[in-house]
């Protein structure tokens, strides 16, 4: 890692984020559990498996259509637990509040947390609060941790994809990141798109009931769908083929992307998951997903092969193909 200073790009979820983790953090922290770098750590203990995860939320603005920092903090951690197939047991929330922050806004955030936790069927069981000087936290930062139990026979992980697997996503991409960008009023754009922020543990439960042997689940947050597919292709040492035609992008999201020169494949989602399913279970999993409100728009987007391991190929709308690389730094608006 040649940079001597941390850049915003290091937090964007793409290649630079990977470099930061691999070259700066892991040399100090690596161990046989962390090394998998899945959405949650899976810790074997006394005959069962615990899932454990942590996340920080620094989103601006704090409130946006479809959610807020409170909802995001619960859903994000519940989803990380769900991505290894675990039932959430409890969440902790740590608040860093800037002096001068309004109590009314804090109440709105807490109300949102309560609602999201109730939707997910989980409790906030521990917490902490710190107050810092004005200017040090941009209003409010939240850090959450979560603990869950992985049921027996469930073994979901980024390195478990197999040639022949079907790849399914539960809906459209890019809604969250563009929703927040529009809420910030950035780049002179106006419009309203709802963030897709939602707890996915209910959907995942239905999927596991239909198929205990799900291979991979991952939520395409920062870095987007392309980055997540690339991570899995590399962890599992398989090739991935995805059909451009099948990827759903809402008109407003596409409009914003066209204007900014953004690629929807690299945009963050907070209510979506990508699933790698054994081929013979495809129909039953898809059916189970479509029966859930968060899975109504589920669609098969591709499959796993043993060709070109580590690479993600996109079959384009004109029947050609091209590589789908992970996000490099952060996406900047372009004019060219």
């Amino acid at each position, binding site marked *: 890692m040649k940079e001597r200073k941390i850049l915003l790009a290091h937090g964007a979820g793409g290649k630079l984020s990977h470099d930061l983790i691999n070259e700066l953090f892991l040399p100090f922290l690596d161990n046989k559990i962390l090394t998998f770098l899945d959405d949650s750590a899976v810790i074997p203990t006394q005959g069962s498996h615990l899932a454990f995860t942590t996340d920080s939320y620094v989103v601006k603005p704090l409130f946006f259509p479809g959610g807020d920092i409170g909802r995001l903090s619960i859903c994000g951690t519940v989803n990380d637990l769900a991505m290894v197939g675990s039932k959430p047991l409890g969440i902790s929330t740590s608040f860093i509040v800037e002096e001068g922050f309004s109590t009314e806004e804090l109440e709105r955030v807490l109300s949102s947390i309560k609602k999201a936790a109730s939707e997910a069927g989980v409790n906030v069981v521990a917490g902490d609060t710190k107050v810092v000087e004005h200017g040090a936290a941009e209003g409010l930062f939240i850090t959450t941790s979560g603990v869950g139990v992985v049921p027996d026979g469930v073994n979901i992980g980024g390195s478990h994809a197999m040639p022949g697997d079907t790849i399914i996503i539960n809906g459209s991409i890019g809604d969250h990141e563009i929703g927040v960008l529009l809420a910030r009023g950035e780049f002179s754009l*106006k419009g309203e798109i709802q963030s897709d922020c939602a707890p996915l543990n209910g959907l995942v439960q239905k999927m596991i009931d239909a198929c205990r042997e799900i291979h991979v689940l991952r939520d395409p947050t920062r870095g987007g769908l392309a980055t997540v597919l690339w991570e899995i292709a590399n962890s599992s040492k398989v090739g991935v083929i995805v059909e451009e035609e099948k990827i759903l992008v809402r008109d407003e999201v596409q409009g914003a992307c066209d204007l900014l020169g953004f690629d929807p494949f690299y945009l963050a989602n907070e209510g979506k998951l990508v699933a790698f399913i054994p081929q013979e279970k495809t129909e039953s999993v898809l059916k189970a997903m479509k029966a859930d409100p968060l899975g109504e728009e589920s669609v098969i987007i591709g499959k796993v092969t043993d060709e070109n391991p580590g690479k993600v190929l996109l079959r384009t709308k004109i029947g050609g193909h091209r590589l789908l690389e992970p996000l490099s730094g952060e996406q900047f608006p372009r004019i060219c």
Partner: protein
Amino acid sequence: MCLGVPGKIVSIKEDIAEVDFGGVRREVSLLICPGVMEGDYVLVHVGFAIQRLEKEDALETLRLFEEIERSYGESTEEDR
């Protein structure tokens, strides 16, 4: 080097138009694209309308297309 996006003019105030792009809107300067009206489509680059899109011209491209299809049909007949 030229991201140009087509959008529909929703309203105009002097030389600024509010343009709709699939549900997302932006203010667009009409300084180099005078003579447009509400309801017109324009091509937008760096926040400026650079050309009005004529519906007839859009149809022209489709006409060329039909010509290609026809000529293909003729040549496959010749190949038989």
